[in-house]
């Protein structure tokens, strides 16, 4: 199979295999790690009998493969469950119910996903602009004061924990200057303007940190490209340094930047925990950390799968992007 269609097909199969592998790993990990799920669900003072009842209720006594099989079944045909007073159906693809809150995992994820996506996409735009921008600027003004200052700033951003940056930003901007409200998630669909205003600080905090990586990466690949012969051609034709740096060197430097971005985007969907926690954004990262801490396996699997999906998606998009950026690369 060749061409874009083949690529899509291979990628889809690869994605499914990856996600399955991820779910198996999570199941196994949670099987072997300490933490008595039934006891945690039931509460610390539950009696052994109650714990046992809860374990039965949650099918925790079944062997691992049976539990995993149920999970797969749920994905394909859905799953019935009891609320005590009635029987409800969780329709396919059903990721199961949270052990802790009895809510459908998929609906938990769906309410939180927009938050994480809002946070990460906005931050990504910023980190790309800031990161690639500073990278380009520091190449253009290389060896001068501008470059030194920029290098210092981005690295300071990189070396400072998000927590500190975020908190300081929040105190100064929201507390002292009162330029922005203390961030609070507003749905995009409710009020796009407030959505953006409220996310501005989280975006900046996340982006300030991430952009350092992009700045460094952009700068170093651009310097590489600047050593190539074709750059000499444009110099010899009087093309200004700005265009040489901003067009020719940048374009040649994109591959690693795209790769880096794909990864950061994907993993930030589930990994922006600190930012989400600090700003009280009810996103997937926060949910994941909480779910892990209370050994809420269905939620963990669900979130990890969704995040995994984004990682894979972002990487697939990245692969297409480099094939577009560099026509010599063939999609595999």
């Amino acid at each position, binding site marked *: 199979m060749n061409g874009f269609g083949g690529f899509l097909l291979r990628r889809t199969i690869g994605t499914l295999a990856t996600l399955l592998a991820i779910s198996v790993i999570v199941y196994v990990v949670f099987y072997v790690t300490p933490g008595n799920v039934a006891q945690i669900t039931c509460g610390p003072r539950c009696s052994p009998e109650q714990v046992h009842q809860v374990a039965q209720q949650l099918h925790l006594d079944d062997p691992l493969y049976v539990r995993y099989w149920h999970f797969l079944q749920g994905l394909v045909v859905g799953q019935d469950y009891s609320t005590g007073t009635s029987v409800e159906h969780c329709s396919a693809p059903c990721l199961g119910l949270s052990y802790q809150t009895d809510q459908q995992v998929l609906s938990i994820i769906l309410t939180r996903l927009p938050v994480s996506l809002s946070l990460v996409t906005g931050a990504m735009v910023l980190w790309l602009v800031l990161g690639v921008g500073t990278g380009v600027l520091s190449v253009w003004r290389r060896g001068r004061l501008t470059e030194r200052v920029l290098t210092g700033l981005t690295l300071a951003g990189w070396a400072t924990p998000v927590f500190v940056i975020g908190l300081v930003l929040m105190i100064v901007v929201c507390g002292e200057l009162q330029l922005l409200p203390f961030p609070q998630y507003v749905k995009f669909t409710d009020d796009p303007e407030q959505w953006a205003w409220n996310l501005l600080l989280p975006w900046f905090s996340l982006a300030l940190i991430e952009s350092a990586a992009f700045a460094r990466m952009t700068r170093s690949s651009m310097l590489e490209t600047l050593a190539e*012969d*074709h750059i000499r051609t444009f110099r010899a034709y009087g*093309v200004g340094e700005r265009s040489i740096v901003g067009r020719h060197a940048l*374009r040649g430097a994109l591959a690693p930047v795209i790769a880096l971005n794909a990864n950061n985007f994907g993993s930030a969907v589930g990994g922006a925990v600190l930012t989400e926690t600090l700003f009280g954004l009810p996103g997937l990262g926060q949910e994941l950390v909480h779910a892990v801490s209370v050994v809420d396996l269905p939620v963990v699997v669900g979130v990890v799968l969704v995040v995994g999906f984004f990682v894979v998606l972002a990487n697939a998009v990245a692969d297409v992007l480099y094939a577009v950026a560099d026509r*010599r690369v063939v999609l595999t």
Partner: protein
Amino acid sequence: MSLVQVTDLTVEFGDLRAVDGLSFTLERGAALALVGESGSGKSTVASALLGLHHGTGARLGGSIEVAGTDVQDASDAELRKLRGAKAAMVFQDPLSSLDPYYAIGDQIAEVYRVHTRASRRAARARAVEVLDRVGIPDARSRSRSRPHEFSGGMRQRALIAMALACEPELLIADEPTTALDVTVQAQILDLLHTLREETGMGLLLVTHDVGVAAESVDRVLVMRHGRVVEQGPVAGVLGAPTQPYTRELLSAVPRVDAARVPSQASEGVVLEASGLRREFGRGKRAFAAVDDVSLTVHRGETLGVVGESGSGKTTLGRMLVGLLEPTAGEVRYDGHARVGVNPAVQMVFQDPVSSLNPRRSVGESIADPLRARGEHDEGRIRGRVTELLERVGLEGAHYQRYPHEFSGGQRQRVGIARALAADPRVIVCDEPVSALDVTTQAQVVALLGELQRELGLALVFVAHDLAVVRQVSDRVAVMRRGRIVETGPADEVYDNPQDPYTRQLLAAVPALDPEVAARRRAARRELASA
């Protein structure tokens, strides 16, 4: 005031004095050729005219004035104004001189817009126009291709087009036709001539091809070791050279009408291609770069491949060595169908720049095949590499140098040395001597012949220089548009061409005598206008 005034120019790279006390002038509308041995400093002079040594490690002495600008003292901004608009340069390594990420038309348009206030659209139209002028067929749609989709000759023409785009007062062309077949070469030289007549453009032509010089300039400067050997009007220098070196140079020029000493080609077929086809692009844009080509190469023989630029020679060569999978057909080596590469079948790449790793010393690159074969003794490796370097006319001491420190011709010889290091049975040489001055070229050709006799080496010799091909080939295949239009023993093909295209090619071979050249040009022009 002269267009170019160079006085006592010296250029030093580290301890190496590449140009040593060179002076010359070039008037507006005049044409000067720099000829001379490979590595004699020609490209260095050309770069110096545009101030391209600024900011590199090179040290310059003397003065340079181009179109009223004192290049040595000019600021960056002044240099930018000079470059491209008043003086444009065609680089010696055209294949690596274009940005691989942008469409060719866009790159030309960009340069055009730097110097004129043209709109994007107008600049794009201008790009198509100049591409068309340098003979890129179907220029409008080809202007959207990226450099790797162009053949070597097409890239070279694209660079010439770029240089012409702003109608500069001075054109510096560093080996502008090395990758062009003779018909296109003639076309380009004619174009330069016309432009010179029409716009009063000055031309500084750097070339090792005395024929090309003879055809296109009115003055010649012969260089050696960074110094002037002889300079004067073209007829004088080429017709009645005063210096022994110049005479030596001229006598080494191969002639297309000279038949070759036949090699002892044996019967054994080493390489055989049948029904080879290779397509590029897909969907509507798909086309066959090589189409149903079958050929055989016997032990110890040389198969010359000539043909128009873009006719599929490189593509064919890459398939023969196994670097490119054919879309259809197969390649048989020693009678066995073969997949992938085999060190016994080597290639000399058309682009000497990109075929050398910029981060490895050339010695290491040449040693690769030795090491791959399992040679571990450093001393023996060094010895062999030194020997190879010397055989191609370089020095053993060049082992430690990096590719960017070599002149164009030197790099090309490094490529040959590397191919030889593998002790191959077949070498596909893709324009192996295009950047070499005639003396070095003769040396390399002699070397190949020698090896052929010693080792029974079979050669596929791709070149646009018909004279050289005749000199080395037992048999010749003529390619056009992906197909072989004519094939046969060299003498037959040269003396009694059957295909009209072959005839056209032979008619376009540049003449050494400037007078003959001028006559021929006039004839061609009449033909074109008729």
